[in-house]
């Protein structure tokens, strides 16, 4: 669905109330974050049976000059559509907007989405509603994102802004010119790991996956690297056997990649390796020692009193127990100090 070809860029025509100052006419670029897209698809799945498309509001951030829009969040808005008329629940839209703004005060209203690729009179009407003065996005244009969700066809997303087009003054409210604008799907560093898990489920029949442990994710990463190395070395040996066509550019690229391998003295490697592996093992050992000590301390604290029989004895056993606990604690302190030294070692 990632449509990579550029759309025609037009200078943006003036907004609906064009008498006011409209400073920027630069083209607009839109960034979509995956969670907004996921949310739209979720809404598409949950649409009422008798409705072909559902709509919702897009929230996000806009750069200062208004030429870059980032869609970060969205929520569904109920609406009904018949052949003659369309009804959007304005109160719902307003209260939901207020609720969202309380949790995400930095996000603003940027536009709306629909779950079908179609643009019609109602689209224009809703577009004008979202772009209006007051509650809408004016003076910035409202962004319209369509995600086609027809079964059996590719999911295709398009983004538009609009320009007023008037035949007559009466018809201005339900007509507008949709201008396609380019968009990108971007995700941040933090989302990578989440998307990896989600993508891992795509080839499963039940569409579910377990959360991988650290070791498992290392394994998959290594397997992927091995796979890539395999492909490259296949190609290289084919070139050497004069079976595949050689390419200087590829050769150069591979050379560059290989020269990235660090040149270090074996003795240095040996030393660094030993230092680090010792650090790791010592911390692991100490962490487990501390865990055992604390477990012991807890057990002693609750076990010692079972020996106590009466009130008078309670005091003395309590004292003993304190002593035992004290011993446990001192051991832990020792552990703490050992770790402190270890950390110094790391810092050296």
């Amino acid at each position, binding site marked *: 669905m990632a449509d990579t070809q550029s759309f025609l860029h037009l200078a943006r025509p003036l907004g609906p109330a064009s008498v006011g100052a409209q400073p920027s006419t630069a083209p607009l670029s839109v960034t979509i974050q995956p969670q907004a897209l996921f949310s739209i698809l979720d809404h598409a799945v949950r649409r009422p049976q008798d409705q072909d498309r559902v709509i919702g509001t897009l929230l996000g951030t806009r750069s200062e000059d208004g030429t870059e829009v980032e869609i970060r969040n969205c929520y569904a808005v109920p609406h009904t559509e018949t052949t003659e008329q369309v009804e959007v629940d304005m109160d719902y839209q307003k209260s939901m907007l207020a609720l969202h703004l309380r949790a995400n005060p930095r996000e603003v209203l940027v536009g709306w989405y629909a779950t079908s690729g179609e643009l019609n009179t109602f689209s224009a009407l809703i577009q004008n509603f979202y772009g209006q003065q007051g509650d809408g996005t004016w003076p910035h244009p409202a962004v319209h994102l369509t995600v086609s969700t027809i079964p059996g066809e590719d999911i295709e997303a398009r983004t538009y802004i609009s320009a007023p087009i008037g035949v007559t003054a009466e018809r201005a409210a339900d007509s507008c010119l949709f201008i396609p604008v380019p968009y990108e799907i971007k995700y941040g560093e933090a989302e990578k*790991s989440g998307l990896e898990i989600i993508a891992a489920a795509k080839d499963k029949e039940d569409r579910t996956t*377990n959360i991988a442990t*650290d070791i498992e994710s290392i394994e998959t990463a*290594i397997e992927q690297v091995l796979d890539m190395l395999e492909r490259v070395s296949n190609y290289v040996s084919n070139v050497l056997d004069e079976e595949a066509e050689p390419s200087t550019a590829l050769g150069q*690229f591979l050379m560059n990649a290989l020269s990235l391998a660090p040149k270090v003295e074996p003795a240095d490697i040996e030393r660094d390796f030993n230092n680090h592996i010792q650090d790791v093992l010592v911390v692991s050992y100490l962490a487990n020692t501390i865990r055992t000590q604390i477990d012991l301390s807890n057990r002693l604290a609750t076990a010692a009193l079972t020996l106590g029989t009466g009130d008078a004895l309670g005091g003395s056993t309590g004292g003993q127990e304190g002593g035992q606990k004290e011993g446990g604690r001192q051991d832990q302190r020792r552990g703490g100090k050992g770790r402190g030294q270890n950390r110094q070692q790391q810092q050296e």
Partner: protein
Amino acid sequence: MADFKESPLKAVQIEALVVMKIIKHSSQTFPTVATGSLVGMDVNGTLQITNTFPFPTVDVPATDGHQDTAANLAAAAPRAKANIVYQNEMIRCLREVNVDANNVGWYTSTSMGNFVNANTIENQFFYQKEMNERTVALVHDVSRSVQGSLNVRAYRLSPSFMISYKENKFTTDSLQKSGLRYQDIFVELPLTVHNSHILTSLLHQLPTSPPKEELQFPPSLAALKQDPNAPRNPLAPNFESLDLSIDPFLEKSCDLLLESIENHHTELNNHQYYQRSLAREQTKISAWQSKRKSENVSRAAAKQPLLPEDEWQRLFKLPQEPSRLELLLNSRQVEQYARQVDGFTAGVSGKMFAVKSNLLPNEG
């Protein structure tokens, strides 16, 4: 340690949407704790979490006088009154657009597994006592997720802990009776991530398919780098987990462990203080009792009326035993750290040996 028989929930299944929303919210507010509400439903013992929304973090009126920092406010958000109203309002709105409108728990973000504290317990207790028992706490570890694999876990409070917490009894006696150990505070539920059909088809479309026609070799290195046909697989390979950074993690773990030991120490001191004062009071009482007894003996000899012997209950006040809850939580936290370090060690030593034998192939 987990006791599944008494719990109606056996597993937790979260939608991809929920994963993304939690990650977004947590990383936005990091390092402040982010909390939010989960909605979904329970199907045959599997809790399906289908949507989520964050709790507002600003303008939350302080629930208690002593909670004034922003971090505390955010952590206490799930049980703040304003947020319950917010949550109900939001769920009412979500119901109108066919989202599963049952509150099934809450999520929190954490850093380095540092989530076992009174706030988490109190929030989950708040949910678990109110909502017919079918609620979970999702814990998303932000700092460990950037190291490679996603770290989200689902927890519930164990039934025995619930009982103790309800009575707020964490004395040595009650712990002996209930046999509650720190390992039994949380029950972890297996967690799976689930994609909808439509999302699956989107994921299959996302890597643009390679061009059909035969491609020419690029004429130069620069052309290769700018080649529009270069495959971009946006999702799957995540080589963050091959990253070989060791020291920051170890240092952080050590700091956290030291902090826990410090806490443990303070708590133990409290207990010792209690025990000393208890012993002191008891010696005083027994001294008083023997004095009263001898007095009564002499009074009986002089045929005077006897003095009551149980007056000590009014005269002396035994000190209150401090709650062991903090100790329990602290121990659980240490266990969490220790396991975390174990997991890290397992991964990193493998990576280190791999690197070593790569750089020194002959000494393998």
